[in-house]
């Protein structure tokens, strides 16, 4: 009964979304505000509808309704309730519902705003978001149904399809058939039972989905021909929040990989990681280049291209992961949604490019670039670098398909390709991050830049020499450390200079001045905080990429392994079941090892291997001793069960990796500062806005 209800509601939402598209277009055609209003209300209605359907699905998940195939595949009786809820996005069908739900939430939020001054955008924003929503709902309704159930005929025989697979459907497939209810489900993949995994997918989806909104406004601007800065101003915060969610989703994914996957890394250049990284690259470029349009009226074409590209990459990335075209640890199982998705991508790309070409002449810049060292020129360079990284990533992802087409062999490119190709680009980006904050809008010369930078450069050079003397002789690492130090010093000097100036002018104490300075131009100083956080993350990435050391060995109790100054001594092994409500759910095998450094006892670590009975899968939980200097990361690879005295360990020393996580927290802080709403600037009259723009351009 519930399954039919949930499915029915989804079907209704799908129809309502389609209606919304139709009504919006009809309303524009006939200049009927009433019909457009109806489209808006239909859009708003999708949110409660999908919420209802999602609530039904969650009810089924939590209450062990294993006759529903999706529930059977992702939950089991022994799972705690919160994991049963989060299993919602643990499989293809559920995650598509989740995605639709988020999209309708965002679309509703955006249609709820006051549209007085932007009425002409409204129908087109509705059209774009509702088409996207209808597409995702359509995939759920027609291909990946989370409410489909198992059936048995009158004789209790399971009903199968022609190919022998179990048949699933919402409604009775044959007269007299009854639902088949398995005793217990398969349970969520243990890898997905990690807290990081509980929030990693929603964060990424939030990022993906919220990029739909800037895209919808961009398309609305193209269709209506209102191609001034308005659409950019309206979507600035959406882009920032979208970027925050996407960035945080990526970092959480890295943290999850580090904690759970047990290969001592955080990023593997896996196609799906890249699929999420590509919209991040264009999104980051976009966040920078919109500033040039706002301040200088330049790069209007480019911003359109970037926002369309970001949306396209979001959809394209989702397609590659979910259709089975590319293989990866993240890929969902073989799925039938490929062709539909392909059609949607084709239509989206063709429509967007046609609109862009049509409006191209109206998007000319208002001024020209005067100086190659002006801030806008440096921003442009920054954009080109981000695009280069994108090209590398895109090529790496698409190359297997091309090579398969050309030679018949699918050649996958591995991490070394990406690392070698992107490292110089990232270095150049860091250098730009160091000099761009010092350059002025409109005009800068080598002289002005040189005067602003020399102190920081000297300090960075000094630090690099110190590092050369005491830490490393690795040339690449030293160059990277120099660039990191340069950016850090330049950015901190900017804070210092502006705070001192304000302190003198306003007669405030240092901290008040700093706080008010940041409060007054949040976007700028939020951005600088993000730069600092990126550099901290770069320290972590550098540490693990260049200085990681590893060893593997089998030792008996009392024996030890040495690595990078650490001694890891195997002490004992224990094995026990962890019961949930009387049933053993997980079997833990835990080794205890003592850690010494230079003969000094530092403590014990407990690397584990967990065996999940329901899904029959293992999970390797590292024992990790984390300091700001390095992480000692110990994995229990294997052991002899009978005598229990020999065990194989894999040990990594990951220098500086903690800075990656510290940086990501600071990053969060920086984005929140930059994105925190003002007293709704969108509501202010245009003239005030213009004056404010002139003022901010003057600083």
């Amino acid at each position: 009964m519930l399954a039919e209800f949930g499915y029915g509601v989804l079907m209704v939402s799908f129809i309502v979304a389609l209606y919304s598209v139709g009504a919006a277009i009809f309303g524009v055609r006939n200049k009927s505000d009433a019909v457009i209003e109806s489209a808006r209300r239909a859009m708003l209605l999708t949110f409660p509808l999908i919420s209802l359907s999602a609530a039904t699905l969650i009810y089924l998940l939590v209450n062990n309704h294993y006759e529903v195939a999706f529930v059977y595949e992702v939950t089991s009786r022994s799972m705690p309730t919160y994991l049963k809820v989060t299993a919602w996005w643990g499989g293809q069908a559920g995650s598509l519902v989740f995605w639709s739900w988020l999209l309708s939430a965002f679309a509703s939020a955006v249609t709820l705003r006051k549209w007085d001054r932007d009425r002409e955008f409204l129908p087109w924003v509705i059209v774009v978001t509702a088409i996207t929503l209808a597409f995702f709902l359509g995939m759920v309704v027609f291909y990946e149904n989370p409410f489909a159930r198992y059936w048995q005929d009158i004789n209790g025989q399971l009903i199968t399809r022609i190919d022998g697979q179990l048949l699933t459907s919402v409604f009775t497939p044959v007269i007299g058939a009854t639902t088949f209810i398995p005793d217990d489900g398969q349970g969520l993949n243990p890898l997905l039972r990690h807290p990081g995994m509980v929030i990693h997918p929603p964060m990424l989806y939030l990022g993906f989905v919220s990029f739909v909104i800037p895209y919808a406004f961009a398309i609305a601007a193209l269709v209506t021909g209102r191609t001034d800065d308005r659409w950019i101003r309206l979507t600035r915060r959406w882009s920032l929040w979208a970027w925050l969610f996407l960035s945080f989703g990526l970092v959480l994914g890295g943290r999850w990989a580090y904690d759970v996957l047990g290969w001592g890394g955080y990023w593997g250049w896996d196609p799906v990681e890249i699929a999420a990284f590509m919209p991040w690259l264009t999104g980051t470029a976009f966040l920078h280049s919109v500033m040039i349009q706002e301040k200088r009226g330049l790069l209007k074409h480019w911003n359109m291209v970037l926002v369309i590209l970001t949306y396209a990459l979001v959809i394209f990335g989702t397609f590659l992961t979910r259709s089975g075209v590319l293989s990866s640890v993240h890929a969902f199982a073989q799925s039938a949604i490929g062709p539909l998705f392909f059609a949607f991508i084709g239509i989206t790309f063709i429509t967007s490019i046609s609109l862009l070409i049509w409006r191209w002449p109206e998007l000319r810049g208002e001024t020209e670039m005067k100086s190659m060292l002006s801030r806008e020129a440096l921003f442009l360079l920054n954009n080109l670098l981000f695009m280069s990284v994108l090209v590398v990533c895109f090529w790496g992802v698409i190359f297997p398909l091309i090579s398969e087409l050309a030679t018949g062999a699918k050649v996958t490119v591995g991490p070394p390709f990406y690392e070698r190709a992107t490292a110089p680009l990232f270095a150049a980006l860091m250098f730009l991050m160091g000099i761009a904050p010092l350059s002025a809008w409109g005009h800068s010369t080598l002289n002005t830049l040189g005067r602003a930078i020399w102190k920081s450069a000297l300090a960075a050079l000094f630090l690099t020499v110190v590092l050369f003397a005491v830490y490393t002789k690795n040339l690449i690492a030293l160059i990277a450390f120099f660039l990191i130090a340069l950016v850090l010093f330049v950015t901190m000097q900017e804070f210092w200079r502006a705070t001192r100036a304000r302190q003198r002018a306003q007669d405030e104490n240092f901290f008040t001045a700093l706080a008010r300075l940041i409060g007054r131009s949040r976007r700028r100083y939020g951005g600088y905080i993000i730069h600092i956080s990126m550099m901290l993350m770069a320290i972590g990435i550098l540490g693990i990429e260049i200085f990681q050391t590893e060893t593997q060995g089998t030792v008996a109790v009392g024996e030890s392994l040495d690595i990078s100054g650490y001694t890891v001594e195997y002490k004992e092994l224990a094995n026990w079941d962890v019961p949930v409500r009387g049933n053993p759910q997980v079997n833990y095998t835990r080794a205890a090892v003592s850690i010494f450094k230079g003969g000094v006892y530092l403590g014990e670590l407990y690397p584990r291997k967990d065996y999940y009975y329901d899904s029959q899968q293992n999970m390797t939980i590292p024992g990790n001793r984390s300091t700001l200097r390095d992480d000692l990361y110990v994995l229990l690879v294997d052991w002899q069960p009978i005598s229990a005295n020999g065990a194989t360990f894999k040990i990594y020393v990951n220098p500086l990796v903690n800075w990656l996580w510290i940086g990501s927290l600071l990053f969060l802080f920086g984005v929140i500062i930059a994105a925190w709403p003002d007293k709704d600037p969108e509501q202010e009259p245009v003239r005030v806005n213009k004056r404010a723009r002139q003022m901010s351009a003057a600083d």
Partner: protein
Amino acid sequence: MTETTNTAPESRATSAGKRGVPAWVQIIVWGLLIALLAIVFVGLRRAQQGTVQPGDKIPDFTLPLFSGYEYEGRSEVKLSDFRGKVVVLNFWASWCKPCEQEAAELQEAWQFYEPDGKVVFLGADYVDTEPEARVYLKKFGITFANGPDMGTKISQMFRIKGVPETYFIDQNGVLQYVKVGPFSSVDEIKSIIDGLLK
């Protein structure tokens, strides 16, 4: 403002003396888009064909072996050499991180079955260079027969989608089980093989 929607933008643009996108740029853009869609379409078609299915008889293939990783002294093996034995064919690469998750498990399973001689483990190194492959094999202490999948001939035959993937071929050369992605335990490998040994 809604009026602007209805004015012909081309005429407005020309009257303002502005130029549209040059034809050659448009041709390139559309050409690239069509090429991209075509590539993805072909990829999608292949993806939907899927891998070789269990129950398929596997055609014979030849795997050259790295020196030091020969099979009973032979530097090249054929699938047909192993009639009567269960063949575990593992595709891997030294650059493949998920492969590392299962490397130790595979080796342990091999050591378990090696004495009986009823099971053969073959490692096919996919798109790799020999020095790097050797480092990998040494790192995980692998001793079963391993060799490069020259020209990706074998992986194409199996239409693998990535590494690691493992194929279990029974005593009659019929594929019985496919594992996509790394094994999570030795028990998982053993349970599949034991099912085939019966």
